């Protein structure tokens, strides 16, 4: 009972604090909209690095100028003007790393049952849920990912369901709530899942789907409903008939059919990805990205033709039957076919080393005579990832005018010894290796470790 009173009192304080600031800029914003405010920054000139622009180019001995949160220019001996000059001779610069597949915040550390918020595994189609409403901003994994150069990331619902819900794209800056982390202007994604997971989760309960054909029937049934909902809404707009009652589940699916929400489809096997492309044809939507896509190399031409990205690991394989045919050259073969290759993590450790995962693929590809230069490989974790998330107009390369999301690496980022030395997000220094005055510490870490005031 006492606890209850304390809770009430706490929320009362919170409400008061909110009403005090009711006249600030946030008040007019739509519910759940991004309330991200970049960290404070000054103009910065990074002097004399090897620069991989993310557009496929490499510029040696180049400077990168950041001002007002944007990339101003990349080139030799730029005029610093008012900017603070930082000598990064011998170092490498890339766009900020983007992970298109993360569960940070929804499956945070520590991974207790109380924190397990990534799968609404209560029905095979849960398009009504939004991953952002599970994101715990105090996950220490955000900070370790930042130290790996990750500046933007997509948080997805898990893969228990055929249609798992909306994803959210974040800037990797700690907030008090998810709205303060949301990437401004990023489109929503829809998580879908093929194969073993949905049929195991529901089949195991004696429910549909229990087979792959059951999976496909499930997607098609959902799209039929969504199309009907969309048509009724459109008709009502034209003054024909009454608008249907608002339905969160169908609203999200209709958003996909309207092209506003991007499809992120967990799918391992080449044959299943091919079927999923046909389902998209049947209902008139586009598969933006296949995730995991362990067999993408078998259908790389189909992916190129459909303009669908394949987000893959370097070498995860064999942990389930649908991952048995994994090969390390997967991304290289996708890239070679002219399709959009992306390296993703799906993992709170792997997200810290997407550069190293890319290096493995470069090495394996070289073994069969496919030479992939650093300036090409970096696209897999920057510009191609930005394309997958629908944010390529804003970030993912070092082109003038884009967000100043930038990583300074101690060395060639594809060396195992290389480290992110400085990470800029919207021009602000969000991380500097070894500088505790700069680097964030999430609330969970305070006092729980010897390094943050806990017991020795």
């Amino acid at each position: 009972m006492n606890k209850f009173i304390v809770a009430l009192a706490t929320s009362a304080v919170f409400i008061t604090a909110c009403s005090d600031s009711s006249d600030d800029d946030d008040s007019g914003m739509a519910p759940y909209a991004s309330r991200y405010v970049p960290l404070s920054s000054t103009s910065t000139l990074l002097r004399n690095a090897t620069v991989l622009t993310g557009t496929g180019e490499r510029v040696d001995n180049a400077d990168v100028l950041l001002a007002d949160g944007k990339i101003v220019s990349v080139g030799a001996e730029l005029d610093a003007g008012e900017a603070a000059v930082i000598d990064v001779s011998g170092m490498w610069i890339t766009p900020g790393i983007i992970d298109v597949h993360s569960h940070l915040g929804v499956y945070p550390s520590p991974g207790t049952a109380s924190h397990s918020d990534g799968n609404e595994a209560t029905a095979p189609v849960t398009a009504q849920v939004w991953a952002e409403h599970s994101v715990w901003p105090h996950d220490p994994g955000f900070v370790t990912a930042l130290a790996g150069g990750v500046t933007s990331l997509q948080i997805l619902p898990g893969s228990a369901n055929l249609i798992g819900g909306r994803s959210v794209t974040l800037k990797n800056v700690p907030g008090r709530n998810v709205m303060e982390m949301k990437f401004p202007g990023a489109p929503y994604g829809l998580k879908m899942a093929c194969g073993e997971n949905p049929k195991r989760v529901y089949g195991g309960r004696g429910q549909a789907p229990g087979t792959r054909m059951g999976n496909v029937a499930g997607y098609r049934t959902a799209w039929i409903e969504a199309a009907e909902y969309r048509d009724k809404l459109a008709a009502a707009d034209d003054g024909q008939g009454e608008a249907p009652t608002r339905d969160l589940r169908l609203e999200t699916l209709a958003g996909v059919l309207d092209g506003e929400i991007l499809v992120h489809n967990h799918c391992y096997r080449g044959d299943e990805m091919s079927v999923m492309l046909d389902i998209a044809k049947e209902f008139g939507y586009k598969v933006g990205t296949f995730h995991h896509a362990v067999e993408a190399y078998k259908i790389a031409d189909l992916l190129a033709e459909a303009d669908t990205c394949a987000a893959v690991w370097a070498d995860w394989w064999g942990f389930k039957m649908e991952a048995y045919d994994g090969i390390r050259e997967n991304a290289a073969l996708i890239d070679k076919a002219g399709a959009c290759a992306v390296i993703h993590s799906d993992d709170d450790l792997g997200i810290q080393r997407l550069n190293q995962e890319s290096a493995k693929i470069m090495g394996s590809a070289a073994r069969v005579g496919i030479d992939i230069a650093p300036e090409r490989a970096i696209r897999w974790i920057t510009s191609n990832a930005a394309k997958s998330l629908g944010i390529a107009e804003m970030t993912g390369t070092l082109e003038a005018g884009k967000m100043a999301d930038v990583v300074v690496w101690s060395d060639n980022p594809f060396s195992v010894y290389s480290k992110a030395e400085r990470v800029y997000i919207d021009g602000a220094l969000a991380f500097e290796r070894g500088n505790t005055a700069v680097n964030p510490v999430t609330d969970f870490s305070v006092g729980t470790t010897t390094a943050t005031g806990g017991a020795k």
Partner: protein
Amino acid sequence: MKRLFIGIATLALTFSAFAETTAIVGAKVHTVGPQGTLMNATIVIRDDKIIAVGSDVSAPDGAVVLDATGKIITPGLFSPFGRLGLVEVSSSAGPADALQRGELFTAGFDVADAYNPRSTLIAINRIEGVTRALIAPAPGGADDFGAVGHVLSGQAAIVNLGDDGVIDQRRAAMVVTLGERGSGLAGGSRAGAWLTLRNALDEARDYRNHKGDFERGLRREYEHSVADLEALQGVLSGTVPMLVALDRASDIEVLIALCKEYGLRAIINGGTEAWMLADELAAADISVLVAATYNLPGDFDRLNARRGAAVVLAEAGVRFALTDGQSATHNARNITQSAGNAVADGLAWDLALRAITLTPAEIYGVADIAGSIEPGKAADIVIWSADPLELTNYPDQVFINGKAIPMQSRQTLLRDRYLKSDSGQPPAYRD
């Protein structure tokens, strides 16, 4: 140059039945043994053994000479923990012989009889340089239906990944699961897991001291089977180390005390907070298998996870091997990534290489046969074009027990089939 080199290696493979002696010449050789790193060295292999190595050694008359000028040579890599040859597909498919689910055996369970040297995982990992491995029972854990497995999950073995597929050593370690995971196996408290271990040790000791009476039916019945009690004798005598999965500093303190009390040898697997007790572990001569890249508080046992733990252990003189914490089985090959990251954190390069070659061999008591390039040891040799810890690099050729293995796996075959996309034939009609 590479093409020529591989051609020669293939030749050696073809004639290996006839040529008793092979000399690999011209490379920079990291022996990881007392000879250190040698420039422009010659390694002489006779049958399955190394018979000489040195910069002043010349190829014997009649030896097949392999020119490795400009190459880097290391000992074969030693995967210090995993389930190679016990598992084909981890979840919901294929053989999974690593876990004893029934109640019949605990400590007595021995994975060696389940080892499949023809598993696809063997070739996939050995072409990346892994030549020896510890294969261990799965630790088990709690699932929706309660505990699966046992605190004492059985005996691990050392195998080599050569074509002769031999078990190098059975009963190389007794696998024990404690900490949070052990608590799930022992009624919900880690204290219960410790008690389970103590009870097993006490019964094994009683059995040892009163075996005759037990066999004549004059001693009480034990909770453990005879197979379990027999398997524990090596642990009690200190000849078989316990390979103990735990992470929290407090559990490590309990382990140190228990080892002292019973006179046991232990190896810690995981040991996320071991760096906090580095001096104590060094004094107790307890080794640690470290996942160099693990740096998150995955649970309340691992709050003090950090990068650079291996550096702290090295400075205190703790013996440690590096593991790939994530997929020690299908991707046992990724121990080079673990080692490379440890170097990035400040570990000396030579120590990192040692931690994936000789040190695991020492930890499991097989350093007399493997782990370094020294006369008398098995000829497990990896020839690289450049720094083996860099992920863009890969072996040109791997030798196991003196034989050049085919540098081919199911994955390279699948790759090659789909590289021929312009063949005009469907994949199933390609090689």
